[in-house]
């Protein structure tokens, strides 16, 4: 991945990642997690901020540290590495809100050419899964290794 990104730490099986965002709001620890869904080989991607002074997560809270492009490139790297180990895995991602979905879409669009080298990318729109194209307001996204 050629875009600038943060160094990642991963646990032993690359299901959970951690990195530190740096910006005007200081250092913020962020987590990336791949969770098994009810369907075999489908994993849900989630990422968010570590709660201050607690060993817990903020549910879908992502502080704007003016580094969204770098954060999203870092998350994309985590997806790349997870699917390197889990070659048959499909990763599904969706935001809790439309604005959060737009953020995910921005991350995919910014990294699209590189992502397409490694992944098949689809988007969910109006009840159908389809090949991902820029400028369609998808409700969810999914990727799978080529």
């Amino acid at each position, binding site marked *: 991945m050629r875009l600038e*990104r*943060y*160094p*990642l*730490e*991963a*646990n*032993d*099986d*690359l*299901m*959970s*990642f*951690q990195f530190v965002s740096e910006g005007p709001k200081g250092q913020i620890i962020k*987590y990336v*997690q791949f*969770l098994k*869904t*009810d*369907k075999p080989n*489908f994993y*849900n991607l*989630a*990422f*968010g901020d570590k709660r201050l002074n607690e*060993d*817990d*997560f903020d*549910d*879908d809270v992502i502080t704007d540290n003016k580094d969204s492009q770098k954060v999203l490139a870092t998350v994309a*790297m985590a997806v790349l*590495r997870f699917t*390197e*180990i889990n070659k048959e895995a*499909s990763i*599904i991602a*969706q*935001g*809790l809100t439309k604005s959060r979905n737009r953020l995910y879409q921005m991350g995919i669009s910014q990294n699209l050419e590189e992502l397409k080298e490694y992944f*098949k990318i*689809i988007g*969910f729109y109006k*009840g*159908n*899964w*389809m*090949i991902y194209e820029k400028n369609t307001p998808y*409700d*969810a996204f*999914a990727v*799978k290794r080529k």
Partner: protein
Amino acid sequence: MIKEVEKILTLQDRDITINSRLNYLNDKVLSPKKLQMANELLARYGVPDFEKILLEDEAKKAKLQEGLNQIGALIKQTRLQRHLSEEELAALLGVENTVVFKLENNDTSVSMETILKVFHVLEAELSFIVTLKQ
């Protein structure tokens, strides 16, 4: 598993380090709401078949290209029926000669407006037949 992971990371990316202290995260569910949404989406609309989606997209693009090929061929056929060279048609359209070549050989993305303009200049009417899929 750990050796395999370390091998891949060592060879390909120095920006990831393995930290076993993060193993505790596997017992936590980050964003249970999103996991629930994902499960509901997959249950309601089914698991996406990537291969099928890719094939359908390729078939759609092939169909579109087939249509464009037909339009290019029609432009050429009509130009010849008007006994015009590519250069003469280009002059009538006010474009470079290469533009006409590209139009006739589908070597460019072309708008409906441009297509209609070409047939207007050739003094020909373009009509469409719509067939509903069963």
